[in-house]
């Protein structure tokens, strides 16, 4: 379980700076360092066991159905990386304390740094591939935050975004690869996967897996052609660069190569892809490292180059090459971290990183010069330093690569070329900065940095030197352990020593050193050669590309979603008609088995008028009032149709609703343009007609097909139970208030909400009001015709009486709360029309909203009442009571429910109509005397 601590402690550590924000910076640094230090101790604690060949693991279930476990392992490779990540991490913590200025939030920095450290540790210790991916993406995220730390700088923001995009994309590929592996192996358990080499390599997915995993690795470790993000990540503070580009971020990519080496390597595909990419990257990085004028840029490209080297080594498919790769991982981490820190000091003390300005610094900071020189020498592969050892191994392995057949000599040749360039840029780093004359207009006068800022570099340089001199003692055990995890089967015998005798690799090293010196001397020719080409700034072109992509996306989205309801509606209807038609095509014969009923002349006339009225509505739709008149004819005839086919309730309802709708539309018409301009093009009209016609045809066919087919329906139950179960003779009404009372409750809720919603819509509504009608005629001065209001006041009590009548009989005969409510509401609206809002409002002392709400509440409470009798919501009861004189009367809870409906309808309808009227009255443009 202690293994968990290695990841957990830094994770907790990411909260430490937040918690200790109020302390001094040095204190914060120390506090932050504590937890990773303990984690390092935990790793040390396991070291002997790991060296003995054990692999400590721990596994906690997390998402079993995804086979995602919190599983960690500490094999040799993991251990090596844990040391690198934590060790260099601790040095960075110290270094950053001095590097960051007072204006930079150290809390934020340490928080992000620790988060990043956690992610790195997670990657290297995960024993579950999905978990590994989790941490993998977490490094992308946290590095985004770190690179963008100086968020005020445009370069930092762009660099961070680019890094996130590239590595994030790679991470997604890795996920796909991992999922494929899991699919092939049947497990995400790393131990199992590592044992499934044959299974994976023989699976048809091998190529896909290989490509996806390599994409993940290459993007992360900045391999060609994904190298471009790395130099721009230099916008980060130098401690970040030192950490990300020596021991961590980019090393995650090569770690992945090492991790999957046992299962993916050994094939030709692996060799060609990895070698080619590695070699290209090696040379590309080396060349540009020579050219860059930015101190950190040089280091960035050298990092790319060295990562290419490591990749190349992994590509060789030999065990010793893998050993060399792992070894170079360590060496590169140490010297590159120290070089970055040295560059940071220079930057920090001089205020610039421009190599053209930086000259002769050794006079100002001799101690730093020495440290940087040693690190550079290691990078160049100078003997007695660790870089020499792995470089030598690399050259030796390049000679062994035979896969290219007759062209195999190319690899050692290019490897030597890479080494030459490496020497050249290392020389340049030292000579151009610390020697080579006097500094040119530096912003600051440089001097040695604070003592503790140098300490981390000293530690690393010490390691470089010691490893370089005493490799067998210092590095062999861990290298052996790490290699054991990388190379399948028996680990190769590693013999690290400074002197292997005179051999070809040594000669190549010599050529590299000499060649490097010569190239450096002749560097001006190279610069001149390079200046012929237009330099491309990867960041800007990436940014431009993204901008262009965004523009293209915006353009296409604007094209697609052009804000046109007409288009959206068209798509909706087209989809619907297409779907319905596709179903209809499956119907063998449209006509069903039912006997068709005869048709009579009344029906024909009615049907023809109905169709003509509908067509009239669309023919006249630009003259809106006429269109409305046709619509009202349609409504009336639909109502007659309901009546004709034995649905008196429906006829009544349709009629009432139709009239209210017409009133509503008339109200609206006043505020809308009274005419529709002719806008649609002929093509549009034709298209719409075609769609409408097809739709109509499909609906008609569906309708015909269904009504000519017999069906066995549940309706019999309602017919049989209406009286005994629901206590009403009007089956439709009993369905509404009892069998399906819940629907009705929902329905009146809709009505109530509509009322409230409309009230809401009318709030602060600004309206256009025509002062004349369509022909420019002023409105009639007579606001309220006498005859009209005399009659309407007579009609009101009569209508209310009818309303009461319709309400009370609804349960047994056509009628019911809804129709009754509409009748009452319409009668009141008539008063409003006849006498105006002001007059009517004075006489109506109540608000409509509470009426509607009360209505719904009554219905709902009626339903709730059944709980008292331990019956489900809305259970009805009824009874017949014998009352003297009056006789038998029936009382049913359904009637109470219907009362709720009644009140809701009145309240909601009046809320809609009367409120609408009210809103407009005060705004009438011209008022005239009555």
């Amino acid at each position, binding site marked *: 379980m202690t293994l968990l601590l290695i990841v957990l402690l830094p994770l907790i550590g990411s909260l430490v700076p937040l918690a200790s924000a109020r302390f001094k910076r040095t204190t914060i640094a120390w506090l932050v360092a504590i937890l990773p230090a303990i984690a390092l101790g935990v790793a040390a604690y396991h070291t002997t066991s790991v060296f003995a060949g054990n692999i400590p693991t721990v596994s906690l279930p997390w998402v079993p159905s995804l086979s995602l476990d919190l599983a960690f392992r500490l094999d040799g490779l993991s251990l090596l990386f844990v040391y690198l990540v934590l060790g260099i991490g601790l040095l960075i913590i110290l270094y950053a304390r001095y590097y960051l200025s007072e204006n930079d939030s150290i809390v934020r920095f340490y928080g992000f740094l620790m988060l990043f450290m956690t992610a790195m540790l997670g990657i290297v210790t995960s024993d579950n591939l999905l978990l590994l991916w989790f941490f993998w993406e977490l490094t992308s995220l946290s590095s985004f935050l770190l690179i963008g730390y100086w968020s005020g700088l445009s370069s930092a923001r762009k660099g961070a975004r680019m890094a996130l995009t590239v590595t994030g994309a790679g991470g997604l590929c890795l996920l796909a690869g991992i999922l494929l592996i899991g699919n092939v192996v049947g497990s995400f358990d790393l131990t199992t996967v590592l044992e499934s080499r044959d299974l994976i390599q023989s699976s048809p997915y091998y190529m896909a897996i290989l490509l996806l995993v390599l994409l993940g690795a290459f993007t992360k470790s900045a391999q060609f052609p994904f190298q471009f993000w790395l130099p721009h990540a230099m916008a980060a503070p130098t401690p970040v660069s030192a950490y990300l580009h020596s021991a961590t971020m980019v090393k995650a990519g090569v770690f992945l190569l090492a991790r999957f080496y046992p299962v993916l390597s050994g094939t030709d595909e692996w060799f060609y892809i990895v070698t080619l990419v590695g070699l290209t990257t090696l040379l590309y990085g080396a060349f540009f490292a020579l050219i860059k004028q930015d101190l950190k840029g040089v280091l960035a490209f050298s990092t790319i180059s060295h990562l290419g080297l490591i990749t190349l080594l992994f590509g060789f498919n030999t065990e010793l090459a893998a050993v060399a790769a792992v070894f170079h991982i360590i060496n590169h981490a140490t010297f590159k971290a120290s070089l970055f820190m040295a560059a940071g000091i220079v930057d920090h003390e001089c205020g610039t990183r421009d190599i053209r300005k930086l000259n002769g610094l050794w006079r100002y900071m001799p101690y730093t010069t020495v440290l940087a020189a040693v690190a550079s020498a290691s990078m160049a592969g100078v003997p007695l330093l660790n870089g020499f050892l792995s470089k030598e191994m690399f050259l030796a392995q390049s000679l062994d690569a035979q896969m290219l057949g007759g062209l195999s000599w190319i690899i050692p040749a290019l490897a030597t070329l890479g080494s030459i360039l490496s020497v050249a840029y290392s020389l340049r780093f030292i000579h151009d900065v610390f020697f080579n004359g006097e500094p040119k207009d530096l912003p600051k006068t440089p001097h040695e940095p604070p003592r503790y800022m140098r300490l981390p570099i000293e530690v690393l340089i010490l390691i470089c030197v010691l490893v370089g001199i005493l490799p067998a003692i210092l590095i062999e055990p861990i290298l052996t352990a790490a290699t054991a995890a990388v190379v399948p089967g028996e680990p190769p015998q590693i013999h690290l020593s400074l002197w292997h005798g005179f051999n070809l690799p040594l000669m190549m090293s010599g050529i590299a050193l000499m060649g490097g010196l010569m190239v450096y001397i002749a560097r001006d020719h190279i610069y001149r050669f390079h200046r012929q080409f237009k330099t491309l700034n990867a960041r800007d072109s990436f940014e431009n590309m993204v901008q262009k992509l965004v523009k293209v996306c915006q353009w296409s989205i604007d094209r697609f979603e052009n804000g046109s309801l007409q288009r959206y509606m068209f798509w909706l209807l087209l989809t619907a008609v297409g779907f319905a038609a596709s179903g209809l095509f499956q119907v063998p014969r449209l006509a069903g088995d039912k006997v068709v009923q005869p048709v009579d002349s009344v029906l024909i006339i009615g049907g023809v008028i109905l169709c003509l009225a509908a067509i009239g509505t669309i023919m006249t739709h630009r003259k809106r009032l006429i269109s409305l008149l046709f619509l009202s004819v349609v409504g009336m005839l639909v109502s007659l149709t309901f009546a004709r086919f034995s649905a008196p309730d429906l006829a009544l309802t349709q009629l009432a609703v139709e009239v209210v709708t017409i009133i509503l539309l008339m109200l609206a018409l006043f505020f809308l343009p009274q005419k529709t301009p002719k806008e649609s093009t002929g093509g549009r009209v034709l298209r719409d007609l075609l769609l409408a016609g097809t739709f109509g045809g499909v609906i008609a066919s569906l309708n015909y097909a269904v009504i000519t087919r017999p069906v066995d329906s549940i309706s019999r139950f309602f017919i049989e139970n209406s009286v005994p179960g629901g206590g009403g003779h009007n089956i439709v009404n009993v369905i509404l208030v009892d069998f399906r009372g819940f629907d009705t409750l929902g329905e009146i809720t809709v009505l109530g909400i509509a009322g409230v919603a409309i009230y809401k819509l009318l709030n602060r509504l600004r309206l256009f009001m025509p002062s004349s009608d369509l022909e420019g005629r002023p409105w009639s001065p*007579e606001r309220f*015709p*006498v*005859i009209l*209001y*005399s*009659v309407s*006041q007579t009609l*009101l*009590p*009569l209508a*209310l*009486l*009818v309303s*009461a*009548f319709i309400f009370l009989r609804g349960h047994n005969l056509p009628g019911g709360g809804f129709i009754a409510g509409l009748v009452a509401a319409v009668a009141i609206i008539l*008063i409003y029309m006849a*006498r105006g809002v002001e007059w*009517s409002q004075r*006489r109506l002392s109540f608000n409509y909203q509470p009426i509607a709400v009360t209505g719904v509440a009554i219905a709902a409470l009626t339903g709730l009442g059944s709980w008292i009798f331990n019956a489900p919501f809305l259970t009805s009861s009824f009874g017949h009571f014998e*009352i003297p*004189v*009056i*006789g038998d*009367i029936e009382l049913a809870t359904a009637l109470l429910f219907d009362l709720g409906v009644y009140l809701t309808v009145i309240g909601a309808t009046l809320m809609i109509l009367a409120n609408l009227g009210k809103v407009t009255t005060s705004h009438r443009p011209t008022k005239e005397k009555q």
Partner: protein
Amino acid sequence: MIPATRLIPTPFLTLLLVAVWLMLQNSLSPGNIIMAVILGIALPRLTYRFWDRQPDVQRPWLLIRYILRLIGDIIVANYEVSKLVLSPWHKPKPYFVVYPLSMTDHFAITVLTSTISLTPGTISAHFRLHEGTVLIHALDLEDEEALINEIYERYEKPLKEIFGC
């Protein structure tokens, strides 16, 4: 607005409502009668605020006679119109007549204009409130004066008696 001082502010209306209720129910059972009375009293009280003060029917019998006469006239009116509609050779002679009112009560005027519209060949076209006249459109009329006299004698005078105004 009619003040609701009395239990039954408008007895005639109450009577009308009771009758209508019973007609609607089509039954004279005790329950229905009780309900009719309840509604007949409740509804006017509920709606009195929407009423202008208006004349009560002073002489109900005259009203009944008026209604019967009206029904007769409607039938005649239809006969007249039918003749005009169906005979292609007869060209109607339309006439706009201004009828001077001698009543001022809006309700009574409404009844009168309705009557005019329902009866032979005439439609009340416009009630000119400020002039105290009704514009009448006659479908086929020779003599303006005759029409005015007829309307006064047949309808307006009885109405004045009925409503006592």
